[in-house]
């Protein structure tokens, strides 16, 4: 059940088959979408980039397809939201538990959160999604936002 994720994810914040050469490209793109939708403040993108540089958000999943969950402090957020990118080719993100280790990431879920208690269900669903076998591969293979929502709702 991933109703909650879908509720936070505007179709305009879904970018599929993105041609990126660095994690900065992806963060710029997704933060730009959230800013255009009025979900985050102009300061959000810089804060996410700074956070990623010092405390990266790549999550190694033990296979070829890893995920990253860039995010930052609540004060940069207007309305809690998600943004999602699938990448044409993986880009490197630092690993959350070992910032010196870079891992190839193919799916990026940007989190814009303003209240951890209010958004706990969504966060749990993000973790469940990451742990669900085949879910990330299905996201990576999606060619339309509808297919993304189908995976999230599965």
């Amino acid at each position, binding site marked *: 059940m991933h109703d909650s994720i879908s509720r936070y994810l505007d179709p305009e914040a879904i970018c599929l088959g993105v041609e990126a050469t660095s994690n900065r490209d992806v963060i710029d793109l997704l933060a730009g979408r959230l800013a255009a939708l009025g979900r985050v403040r102009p300061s959000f993108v810089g804060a996410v980039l700074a956070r990623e540089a010092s405390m990266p958000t790549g999550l190694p999943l033990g296979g070829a397809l890893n995920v990253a969950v860039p*995010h930052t402090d609540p004060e940069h957020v207007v309305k809690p939201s998600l943004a999602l990118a699938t990448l044409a080719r993986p880009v490197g993100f630092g690993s959350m538990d*070992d910032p010196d280790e870079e891992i190839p990431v193919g799916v990026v879920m940007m989190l814009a959160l303003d209240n951890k208690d209010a958004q706990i269900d969504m966060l749990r669903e993000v973790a469940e999604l990451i742990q669900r076998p085949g879910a990330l591969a299905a996201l990576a293979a999606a060619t339309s936002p509808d297919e993304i929502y189908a995976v999230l709702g599965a």
Partner: protein
Amino acid sequence: MPRTKVVLVACGTAVATSTVVANAIEEEMRERGIAVDIRQCKATEVPGLIDDVDLVVSTTPVPPDLDKPVITTLAFLTGIGKAEVLDKIEAALRG
């Protein structure tokens, strides 16, 4: 009645990943019959909050020399090695 153990759960922002971890630890330890008081903070805040803490669980590196047990794990986010980490947490809290 054993004293409630205090677990400090840290991540980069204290808003996203530590929330998932805090939730999971609270639920799992309750099932194992261990009462825990869970506190969340940023990794950089750990040294200032460490005094009455029994165990630190973090998703990101924390400052060294804390003088308390520290478990750095992504298991609650990735699912990889979760059972082992829960056993480690239980052992640290029962110890």
